[in-house]
């Protein structure tokens, strides 16, 4: 099993959610986070004073999927989340040892 963790623009949550759901991923965890990557943030102006907003609001999406689906799901998410501008986010994938469905006690891929 693999956990795919995506840091995305908040505006892209809907399209990513729709895309992975269409692929057949049912379990999804979404967190509001702030962070930055290569980008330098953006500028807001309040009453003439400029502010550099350098830790930006982002959305973290976590899904756990069977290993065979990893490449495909990363491609799908990349497509759904891309604007082409700086700040589109990142995707991290890492191995998961086990998963347990608490209600039934099922483990492994059956639990996801």
């Amino acid at each position, binding site marked *: 099993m693999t956990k795919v963790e995506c840091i995305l*623009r908040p*505006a*892209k949550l*809907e399209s990513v959610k*729709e895309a992975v759901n269409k692929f057949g991923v049912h379990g999804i965890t979404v967190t*509001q*986070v*702030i962070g*930055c990557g290569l*980008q*330098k*943030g*953006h*500028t*807001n*102006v*309040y009453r003439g*004073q*400029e*502010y*550099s*907003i*350098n*830790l*930006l*609001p982002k959305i973290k999406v976590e899904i756990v999927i069977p290993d065979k689906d990893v490449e495909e799901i990363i491609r799908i998410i990349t497509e759904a989340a891309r*604007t082409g501008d700086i700040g589109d986010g990142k995707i991290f994938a890492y191995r998961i040892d086990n998963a347990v469905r608490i209600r039934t006690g099922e483990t492994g891929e059956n639990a996801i």
Partner: protein
Amino acid sequence: MKILRVIIMALSFLMTLPVLAWAEEAAAPAVDTGDTSFILISAAIVLLMTPGLALFYGGLSRKKNVLNTIMCSFIALGIISIQWAFYGYSLSFGPDVGHFIGSLDWLGLKGVGLEPNPDYAATIPHQAFMVFQMVFAIITPAIISGSVAERMRFPAYLAFILLWATFIYDPVAHWVWGVGGWLRNLGALDFAGGTVVHIISGVSALVAAMYVGKRKGYGRELMIPHNLPMTVLGASLLWFGWFGFNAGSSLGAGSLTTMVFVNTQLATAAAMLSWVIFEWIRHGKPTLLGAVSGAVAGLVAITPACGFVTSMSAIIIGFIGGFICFFSVAIMKAKLGYDDSFDAFGVHGMGGTWGAIATGLFASKAANELGNDGVFYGNPDQLVTQLIATAASWAVAVVGTLVLLKVISLFTKLRASDEEQETGLDFTQHGEDAYTEFVSGSPFGVDMTAGGAPVGAEKPAF
């Protein structure tokens, strides 16, 4: 320096215009202080309706669009006030030209002084009447923003409300209320703006919503109000201000004013109850948003009739108005599939149309001898007159809005791009965020690591 001098001279000239006018009108009729104080207070509370509308709509928006939504109402206070003083008032109420429009004789408020103008209000200063009408002219285009919210670009919206006020509001205000206006001559009854304010703004709102197109993701993504308490606050300010709107339209303080005040309250209460009842029957639960929407529907519906009907008629008008608006918002909109973001057409267009027709049904000389009898008091002709006024308002709103949007689209894009809509109009149009819990940064020119010492205007690299 030359330019500065020209600007100063132009401003000095404009500032002298009202003064010259006052001097000319020294021998005019006397001002009644009671009436004047009431109208000025009414004008002030009607003005408060526009920020009220801003909060009403703001609460209904998604949080990434709340500032833009509020701004679309609030900016009307700036733009239309100036438009009104320069030429809007003259076009609406100035000396008649062909029963269609006011002349430009009162340009820059020339001749609009501190003595009464007996043609409009014999007991208050002409400027009090002018400023009372100004706050109507402000809120009317702001109503339209509710239908195109969350997707119309701000520059295009600004151009639209300025042109709309000039080419649609001002002429229709002249037709209905201006001395010599053809609908006024025809005998159309519109006490406080059912036709002038609500029908033309509501119908224009529908046309604009369809022209600009649906919001990106409409029908697929969740588009629910982000702050209903804000909406309730806004609706409450609208209700409060509406007493100035309706009762103030009697242009004095007295018996008629009292009747209008009572009718306004009763119709609003009835519409609130009717919306909640029908919603409860259809959806199984009475909602707070339903209650405030019903109240606004009732305020709209009674507006044209409030000075011409009895209290019991007001309750009936409100109750039916609540149902009509509920039907148009909850059922008709879904069936027809247009995206009227915050139901500017469903509430103002439909409620205003019902109110104009209801005036032709329920008006009674027993309630106000300066009005007329309607169908239920033996005068079906009044209904015909009301229908003509309604049809004319619909026609000018549909055609005028289409033409204006087409013209504006030749110069600038009307619709925010998909990307701008996804990010939200607050940031893309204004560079501001309403809610900043997850925002972290620093002001330019201040080094936060050095205890706030100025370091020049470098942008921090991260």
